[in-house]
């Protein structure tokens, strides 16, 4: 499964048994991330049929608010394909804890668990 790189953001994809893991790393500070990320997540969702999805933000150093619609867009696309998906974030990072606490509310609407790690 291919990875994604855009500006200072890298998303590395790994298949571990029946789980596809997407590690967000670096800094997500692009202008309109969703425009670049949408083709990627639609492709990997299509490839990952019948697999569980884990999106791991724990190593992400920082993100801007333009990253949020892209993350929500990915969650929405997972929900539309009825995929079993989980998001994890770093509970020891102040910005991750506050940002993802609210995104967990959005995740509920999409049947996606957003959990601290």
């Amino acid at each position, binding site marked *: 499964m291919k990875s994604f790189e855009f*500006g*200072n953001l890298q998303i590395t994809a790994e298949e571990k048994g029946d789980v596809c893991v997407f590690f967000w790393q670096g*800094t997500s*500070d692009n*202008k309109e991330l*969703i*425009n670049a990320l*949408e083709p990627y997540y639609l492709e990997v969702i299509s490839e990952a049929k019948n697999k569980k999805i884990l999106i791991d933000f724990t190593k992400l150093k*920082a993100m*801007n*608010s*333009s990253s*949020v*619609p*892209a993350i*929500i*867009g990915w*969650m*929405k696309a997972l929900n539309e394909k009825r995929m079993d998906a989980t998001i994890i974030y770093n509970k020891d*990072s*102040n*910005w991750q804890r*506050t*940002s993802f606490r*609210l*995104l967990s*509310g*959005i995740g509920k*609407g*999409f049947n996606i668990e957003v959990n601290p790690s």
Partner: protein
Amino acid sequence: MTQKMDIKFYLKFSAKPVWNTVSEIRQKIKALIAKKKFTEEVIEAMETVSMELFENAIKYGVSTEDATDVSLEIIYDEISELKIIVSNGIESKDSIQNFSELIESILNSKDLEAMYMQRLNEIAQNPKSGKSYLGLYRIAYETGFKLAYEITGKKLIVIASREIEDES
């Protein structure tokens, strides 16, 4: 960049309103504020506020006779108030009506979390809805900085301020 010694510290950055300056400015700010003896929470909040305001200024600002460049100032003064001030050119007062209405709503909000959540739910309906000013919600809800703004001619000045305990 300049530094003055008559206040606790003062940093100023200026840049042309083009997106490729964002990463460079982020790295400079991060390196400079990391040297100050603030808590990790304050440093993260400063970085978030600086970059959200700077990115908004680059995204929505224009070059005018009153503000050819985007500028960002960080001031930590004698009364332990941290101020992050970002200015950019605007076409007119009317051209930033959505921005000014949003700032007023944030200032008058009794429940910032509910307000932010409502905006996230709107984005969930249509993630590609464009101009979101989500950074302002993020600053107000996540960082503890208070937002204010001034308009001078064709220049918008956004001020984020927060009282900080001196740990130096």
